[in-house]
């Protein structure tokens, strides 16, 4: 790095470290202790104090237990980066592990176990073996935990120790005698131990109904525990055993006994309430009788957090019945006038779903919806029209008298889903609307700018209008078309948020775990990076459970690219029949839960049990479409194929989709290699990716994905500083585009630069401008187009400004979106 670059780089403040070093070597004990405290404080906020390693370790030989603990804490954090120096501490550890004070013995063993340096672990075995037989139970407890640590660090080395004796037989096997002992221990251990015992026992399968009843009898007192985790684990255990109990009286009594503790979970802190509600959502799908009479406890409190309110709404819908619907509708009506927009929308949808679910209450639900429409709040009106369309589908030719009211609100519709719903209504009931042609014509005025969803509905409605109000044309053609387009349609039901039975079964086995909060099987969000260790420590899969992944290797395109595949053609005929599910409102993905890394592009409810999650990614210079297929249907799926519509960068599959047959309840993951500039679309640039996926058992599924631009950044995007400056000057000023990111905060410069570099946005230089920091980066997209970036911000403060210069300024919107995504993540 030449001296000319120095003005772009600031130097680290160096006064602090020497001062601490001096204090660490002070002859006064109190001063040394204070110095170590300062080092720990600096370490906590992320400063690099590793250069003080030797000085801190020298403070280790002390009788002062406070000081010793502080030094040990430092060692745990920095031993990995200073392994050779850490060895110097071993003698003190070994000596401390034989100290007369049991606290010091335990502390030494615990600290050695936390230091993840292979050489340390070699010295650890002897002291550990000794401490496992220590007189003091506290030392033995600490040593037992340390065995698990040792296994995690160095499985091979651990095998040489006592673990080897156990590894030839199952480490933890549940038998009826083990069960009995653990149930006895349940009464004697702490609340945390109770949770672990109950979770372990929940995998036990009772031999018969009598044994199940005995187990339940011993677990039931845990329902009165003040710790909510104990209560939930006990509920899980009882639900499992109830499957084996044949007496309806016993089952009914258990349901009655479980209801109050479940409801009491809603009196806990909001965080616990949220977890409880996610579990209750599953429980009421399997055993609705448990809480059938408790709907009032799920009425939203005015000051509930939004994530609690959303879950309560969901459960109210599931518990709504002819008996309680009047009370429930009053509540929904109140919620629909609250301040939070998302909550209001969900309340309106809830009314629609109740109408579909409860036939006798449908008219009352519609009355409430009409009342809400009259309030003239825009997003309420649009949401109401969407659900009314679904009600029309559920009850054809029953409630069309309200169409006139709906038509009064056409001017306010600006959301695609609401427009599409209104257009569907006009087309479906064209013969009852005098000016249907004029209404459709007003929508047609903006046809080119509408999203595909609206365009498709407009085409369908126009054809329907023609068929219902023909002005001219041969009768035979009209009649034939009528038979096709106006055929009777299947009746929809409210199953949009119902879980597939096999998935529900798996989630019920995982009640009181993260799985029941995310509503996903564990393999959907657990990454098995430490496979063997985790199976030992946290093997919570039921026996016979299949692993979630059957990965297919990607097919790399080494030769010339294959001919561009044909763009998929939308199946207009299918939609004319009204059977295409694209017109059914997709379920709201819960906004309160973040899914797995791949975003769901085809939900189970839309794909009739077939679910696709996907994301465009970049690995080793190659672009892949990373996909996860999940089969929540009851039949095997095979013969998977994929096609991509034309898009701005011509992304297309480099080869066929390689996914094996999917058995019900299983999933498969694949990396599909992609090529570029094969499938170019004309018109304005867009980050939309339109995809069609097919299998042999189901019709073609269409979905839209949106790719983040940064996957296109190439590995050769780095520029020399001089080249950067030269390119910046050579581009005209009109090629520079700026944008502000008010919400962006850069707290850690190093972490930010690392993250950008990992996505091929390379750091060039940095300078100071007034009190702001200015960073320069470079990147490239395929075909060698450079991207020059200037980022201005105050580190630690919200707000950043980004300026981009590139030969293709029309791409700036995508560049900004990519940069914002990277900075935000």
């Amino acid at each position, binding site marked *: 790095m030449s001296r000319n670059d120095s003005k772009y780089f600031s130097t680290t403040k160096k006064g602090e470290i020497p001062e601490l070093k001096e204090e660490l070597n002070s002859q006064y004990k109190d001063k040394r202790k204070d110095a170590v405290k300062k080092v720990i404080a600096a370490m*906590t906020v992320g400063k690099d104090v590793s250069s003080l390693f030797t000085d801190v370790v020298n403070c280790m030989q002390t009788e002062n237990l*406070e000081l010793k603990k502080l030094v040990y804490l430092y060692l745990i954090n920095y031993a990995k980066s200073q392994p050779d120096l850490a060895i110097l501490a071993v003698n003190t550890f070994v000596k401390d592990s034989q100290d007369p004070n049991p606290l010091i013995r335990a502390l030494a063993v615990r600290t050695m176990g936390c230091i993840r340096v292979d050489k340390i672990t070699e010295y650890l075995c002897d002291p550990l073996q000794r401490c496992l037989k220590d007189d003091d139970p506290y030392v033995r407890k*600490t040593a037992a935990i340390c065995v698990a640590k040792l296994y995690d660090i160095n499985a091979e080395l651990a095998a040489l120790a006592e673990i080897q004796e156990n590894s030839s037989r199952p480490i933890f096997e549940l038998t009826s005698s083990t069960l009995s002992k653990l149930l006895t221990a349940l009464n004697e251990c702490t609340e945390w131990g109770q949770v672990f015992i109950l979770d372990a026992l929940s995998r036990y399968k009772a031999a018969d109904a009598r044994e199940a009843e005995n187990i339940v009898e011993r677990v039931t007192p845990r329902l009165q525990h003040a*710790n909510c985790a104990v209560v939930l684990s006990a509920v899980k255990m009882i639900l499992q055993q109830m499957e084996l109990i044949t007496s309806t009286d016993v089952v009914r009594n258990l349901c009655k006994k479980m209801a109050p503790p479940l*409801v009491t979970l809603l009196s806990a802190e909001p965080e616990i309430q949220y977890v409880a509600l996610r579990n209750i959502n599953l429980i009421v799908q399997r055993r609705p009788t448990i809480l059938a009479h408790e709907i009032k406890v799920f009425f939203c409190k005015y000051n509930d957090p*939004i994530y609690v309110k959303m879950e309560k709404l969901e459960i109210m819908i599931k518990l709504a019945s002819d008996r309680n619907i009047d009370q429930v509708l009053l509540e929904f009506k109140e919620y629909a006038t609250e301040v939070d927009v998302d909550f209001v929308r969900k309340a309106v949808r809830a009314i629609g779903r109740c109408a579909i679910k409860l036939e006798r209450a449908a008219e009352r639900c519609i009355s409430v919806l009409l009342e809400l429409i009259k309030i003239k709040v825009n997003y309420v009106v649009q949401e109401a029209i969407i659900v009314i369309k679904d009600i029309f589908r559920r009850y054809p030719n029953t409630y069309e008298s309200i169409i006139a009211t709906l038509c009064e609100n056409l001017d306010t519709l600006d959301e695609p889903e609401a427009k599409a719903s209104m257009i569907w209504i006009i087309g479906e009931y064209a013969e009852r609307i005098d000016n249907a042609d004029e209404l459709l014509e007003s929508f047609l005025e903006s046809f080119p700018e509408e999203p595909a969803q609206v365009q498709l509905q407009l085409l369908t409605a126009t054809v329907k209008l023609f068929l219902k109000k023909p002005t001219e044309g041969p009768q035979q053609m009209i009649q034939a078309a009528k038979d096709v387009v106006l055929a009777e349609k299947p009746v929809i039901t409210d199953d949009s948020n119902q879980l597939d039975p096999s998935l529900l079964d798996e989630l019920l086995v995982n009640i009181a*775990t993260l799985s029941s909060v995310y509503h996903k099987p564990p393999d959907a969000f*657990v*990454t098995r990076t430490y496979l063997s260790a985790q199976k030992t420590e946290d093997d919570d899969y039921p026996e016979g459970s299949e692993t979630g992944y059957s990965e297919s290797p990607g097919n790399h395109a080494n030769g010339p690219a294959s001919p561009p595949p044909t763009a998929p053609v939308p199946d207009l005929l299918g939609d004319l029949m009204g059977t295409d599910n694209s017109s059914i409102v997709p379920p709201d993905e819960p906004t309160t839960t973040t899914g797995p890394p791949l975003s769901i592009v085809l939900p189970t409810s839309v794909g009739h049990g077939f679910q696709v999650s996907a994301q465009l990614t970049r690995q080793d210079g190659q672009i892949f479409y990373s996909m996860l297929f999940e089969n929540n249907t009851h039949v095997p799926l095979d013969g998977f194929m994929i096609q991509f519509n034309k898009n701005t960068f011509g992304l297309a599959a480099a080869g066929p989709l390689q996914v094996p047959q999917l058995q019900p309840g299983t999933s498969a993951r694949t990396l599909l290699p992609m090529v570029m500039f094969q499938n170019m679309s004309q018109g304005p640039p867009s980050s939309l990716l339109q995809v069609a996926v097919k299998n042999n058992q189901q019709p073609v599924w269409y979905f839209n994905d949106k790719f983040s631009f940064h996957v296109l950044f190439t590995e050769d995007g780095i520029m020399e500083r001089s080249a950067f400056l030269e390119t910046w000057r050579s581009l005209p000023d009109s090629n520079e585009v700026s944008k502000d990111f008010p919400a962006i905060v850069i707290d850690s410069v190093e972490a930010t630069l690392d993250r950008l570099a990992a996505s091929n946005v390379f750091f060039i230089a940095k300078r100071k401008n007034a009190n702001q920091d200015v960073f320069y980066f470079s990147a490239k997209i395929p075909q060698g187009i450079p991207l020059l970036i200037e980022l201005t911000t105050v580190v630690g403060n919200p707000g950043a400004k980004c300026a981009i210069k590139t030969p293709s300024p029309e791409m700036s919107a995508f560049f900004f979106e990519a940069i914002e995504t990277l900075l935000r993540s």
Partner: protein
Amino acid sequence: MILQFFVLSQRGDNIVYRDYRGEAQKGSAETFFRKVKFWKEDAEGDAPPVFNIDGVNYFHVKVAGLLFVATTRVNVSPSLVLELLQRIARVIKDYLGVLNEDSFRKNFVLVYELLDEVIDFGYVQTTSTEDLKSYVFNEPIVIDAARMPPLGPASIFMQGTKRMPGTAITKSVVANEPGGRKRDEIFVDVIEKISVTFNSSGFILTSEIDGTIQMKSYLTGNPEIRLALNEDLSIGTSDYRGSGAVILDDCNFHESVHLDSFDVDRTLSLVPPEGEFPVMNYRMTQPFKPPFRINALIEETGSLKAEVTIKVRAEFNSSINANTVLVQMPLPSFTSRVTFELEPGAVGHTTDFKEANKRLEWGLKKVVGGSEHTLRAKLTFSQELHGNIMKEAGPVSMTFTVPMYNASRLQVKYLQIAKKSKAHNPYRWVRYVTQANSYVARL
């Protein structure tokens, strides 16, 4: 189980950080805070307490303005992790006396020492303040209680006619008194949070009491305690005994409580661990007399005008006072101006129109039992109404604290401490407080 534990301030500063497994990537705290801060990019909204980013599960609870966060990669019991975070906060509070960012920063070394004993290799070991005393040696640096904001008269403890300020329980459980003298006393709180929803006619739609009997023990020698509740207490509706009975829907207990006598005479036996803990939680939905009645009315008085009338009546005994009463009411979004009219002789009342979120606020410093208070407000709008004005405004919500009152009538009949000698006479302090949780009148 737990990969990391850290505590963040409201600004996202890292105050405490522990990495138990060494397998987490750098910048977890940063990733977490950015996600939580901007969960809803367009509006205010809390992030759910559990979410997943790139395969890492983040759990968080908010306590005293701090974010307590844990991370995992495996499929754990989320309620266990959330309970653990709450419990860690409570243990730290037992040690520091007062939990806030200031006391936390001053005692961060002590906090690290506590964490070392509470969690080992990501597994919870103990959260008992009493157990931890055997292992932890740092003395807490105590924040001067005089520098704390005043808690107000709601927190007076009672024992007969003697009074003790509520700041008594902000002392550290483990710190020695000046001069080395040990305190010998126990505090019992019966705290009830009331949720009531009135409809527009003033009738109760839903009502609920969430109660807790909370104990904070400074007793020496860990004596056994017997705590007696109402003899006619019923749990569940199946064993209804009479019109005067207290009927609870459900209750649960701390694990130190023995229930042998509970079914017979409604007494609890326990050896209370040091520190603060909930002896018993209970819930009640049987109809009860609400402490306040709210009547609210809004009506148009012109093309761009309306008038609001709110009447609040205290339904408890005149010897009891409610404190820090606040009445709030959202107004139509197009309200441009509000003028208030208080009743003659109103003392200690404040009124305000919050322009930012179009809300009317009415504060009453003290409300005497049996009294009634009225507020009138004249609204001026910036645009014409389209529909029913009652749909655009409300509901009226209320917060209050009523000491020496509980709506359920659950009582601590006596609190008996096993004596070691005749000279041993520890102090017993019992406090009843009723607070509003979600107290709402719809228009």
